[in-house]
């Protein structure tokens, strides 16, 4: 089994708000991230797939295909977007880094046929990242 990781960068804005909380609770729990005008990040995405090396190609996965899937499923939908308003997952879920990693996993996992998705890592900043391994 070999693991392969591909990185991609995208920039997006978001804010954290739960309509079930009072304005005070929202401010208290989410702090500056509760600003309804939103704020942005340069996200760094790492997608790790795993599989056996194909004896003919020497690949775990065709990197060209993986790049295309990442672009189509994630970057086209999220790059230079306001996540709360333009990405359907976040009309009902708060676009935290945790939920972003889960949403990206859910978008990619059914589209990968050759290799198995192992981990989605999303860096919100260089000092904060979330890993999702598909665990329930």
């Amino acid at each position, binding site marked *: 089994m070999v693991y392969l990781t591909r990185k991609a960068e995208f920039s997006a804005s978001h804010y954290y708000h*739960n309509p079930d909380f009072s304005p005070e609770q929202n401010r208290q729990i989410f702090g500056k991230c509760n600003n309804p005008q939103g704020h942005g990040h340069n996200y760094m995405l790492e997608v790790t797939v795993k599989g056996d090396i194909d004896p003919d190609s020497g690949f775990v996965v065709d990197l060209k295909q993986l790049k295309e899937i990442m672009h189509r499923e994630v970057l086209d939908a999220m790059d230079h977007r306001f996540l709360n308003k333009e990405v359907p997952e976040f009309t009902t879920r708060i676009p935290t880094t*945790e939920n972003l990693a*889960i949403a990206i996993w859910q978008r990619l996992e059914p589209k990968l046929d050759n290799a198995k998705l192992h981990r989605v890592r999303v860096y919100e900043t260089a*000092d904060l990242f*979330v*890993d999702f391994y598909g665990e329930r």
Partner: protein
Amino acid sequence: MKAHLTRRYRFSASHRLHSGNFSCEQNRAIYGKCNNPHGHGHNYILEVTVSGQVDGRTGMVCNLIELDDAVQSEILERFDRQNLNTLLPFAGKVPTTENLCVAIYEILQPIFHAAHLERVRLEETMMNSFEYRGKENATVSS
């Protein structure tokens, strides 16, 4: 859904690697430049990984403010700009980054309850890093 959240912090500290169990020659042979009696320092990078179910109401594994507060008050205030050899966790113990990694895990684990402490990783330099995941789960990489 269970996610792992990692936060990076920085602190600077000095240390000297020297064991009372070895002769002066043995200390010099084992620890090399790190045995300099005057000590030397590093800019450490600390990674704390916590895990847990993503709370449906907040979208979070745990509130980052709670994690930052715990690391700030229990770790950074204790170790930043200090000589590690003079601190309690290293009484009778060599302040290698292995031991520092374990000490940080053991300080945080009993006081941080907002999520499961999964891993403490320390970079001593860009070239050396150490990880501790609790008993039976220690790993070192360089």
